């Protein structure tokens, strides 16, 4: 039962976003399978989860803006553009790799 309560996933940050997550480029974590509303956890939930629980940097708006991933940050779900996968509504599956890559930072 316990194993079905959570989904193991990998979350990666690059393009400068790792700076907001204590310079960690890769996180292995488990998120609840269902969120409070008894719906399957999706990308929107994951983003909120990352913000609330894993992001120590106070500059939340560099990751999330107006309740969604900040424009200019690309989200790849198992290497595919999240726009091909339903964006925030994509329901996270066991073993998924979610990559957030910023296009906003310079060289």
């Amino acid at each position, binding site marked *: 039962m316990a194993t079905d309560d959570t989904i193991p996933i990998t979350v990666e940050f*690059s*393009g*400068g976003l790792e*700076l907001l997550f204590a310079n960690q480029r890769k996180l292995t974590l488990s998120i609840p399978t269902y969120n409070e509303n008894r719906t399957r956890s999706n990308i929107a939930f994951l983003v909120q989860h990352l913000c609330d629980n894993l992001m120590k940097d106070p500059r939340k708006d560099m990751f999330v803006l107006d309740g969604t991933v*900040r*424009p*200019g940050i*690309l989200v*790849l779900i198992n*290497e*595919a*553009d999240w*726009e*091909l*996968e*339903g964006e925030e509504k*994509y329901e996270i599956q066991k073993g998924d790799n979610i*990559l957030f*890559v*910023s*296009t*906003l*930072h*310079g*060289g």
Partner: protein
Amino acid sequence: MAPSLCAICATNRALILRPKDHSKLCKPCFVSVFETEIHHTITTNALFHRGEVIAIGASGGKDSTVLASVLKTLNERYDYGVELILLSIDEGIKGYRDDSLETVKRNALQYEMPLTILGYDELYGWTMDQVVEQVGKKGNCTYCGVFRRQALDRGAARLGVKHVVTGHNADDVAETVLMNLLRGDLPRLSRTTSIVTSTPSAVSSDPNSHTNIKRSKPLKYAYEKEIVLYAHHKNLDYFSTECIYSPEAFRGSARALIKNLERVRPSAILDVVRSGEDMAKLVPGSDEGCGGVCASAVAAAEEGEGGCGSSNGRTAGGEMASMEMHLAQNDLAAENGLEVEITSVPAKKGKKNKGQPPAPRKTTKQVMGQCKKCGYLSSQDVCKACVLLEGLNKNRPKHEIGVVDEAQEDSTSGVQGVTNGINKVNIQVD
């Protein structure tokens, strides 16, 4: 959602959704299309010629890294016959540029290109760390921007290279177009939208002069999103950072606007670029107005100062002065039947043609001149870099920088403030 197949090969799973036309592509097809489009940009604009040595302005960031990788690929695939080298500018900011330069050094090995790193200390006698120590954290972007603008040209001249390519992408250009629109600065549009700009050799017959460098932006039509995806899917080694002196500089409002527009309507970015080009054609004295053949002049001296690791430093500068120089040059060119370059005509000739309404004030001696101190193309007796340096060297800033009371990310208007101030003085003298 069922996975969709690539629109080109119809075999592989689509991983990329192209912003410009919503097409869904797989990884290999995307890489191939992306490279082919850059090739198309290069050939249709005749950016390169065989035997040319081309310096890639390399910062270690995504844009210049992708540029170097793609140019190497294309040069081999299509046999351009050009020699590619890397040119990096070290502003002298510990903990910021150090890591990027390490990336550039790796790139040099990966792409087998010779690398030259030129420091502000070497060029100007001051590192940015020293400048900040002297002037403080506010306003230092002005120095960095002014110094950077000349640095690539100076570096290229030292290497005897006539052509510098930079990684400016479609998002950068769209952002600049918007900023100029929002400022009501149409004259500058033509220069910021040109794919090729070159400083004229008008001020010097010395072929090695650093005022005789061509600049081009092969990634001008490439989306930032695709550049990042290309780097990701090709596993390119690049470095992302923000300048430690201006950590939030990328949050320029024009940039945010562009990114918000892209979310709603992805084609908007290229549409803004194209609108910028079309508007530029309508501006008197624009490069585009004569099909981009006429003296592109002055542009390189005034653009590409994108400091702060992001692009919102790219739009400052002596717009009016440049415009005047440009107009004056067009007049001169018309008088002499020259199209591209003016070499030895006294600037005073520009005083004719007074009847023409769009040309405001004609040349004073310094308009088309060289900086008396360093020889760099300058509309003033002494170029901005030398003015700032003089201040630094006197142990205090000579000019109060306009940015001081403003938010750091607004530093571009600070530069403009200084420039306009100088222009005003000139007008009165006139």
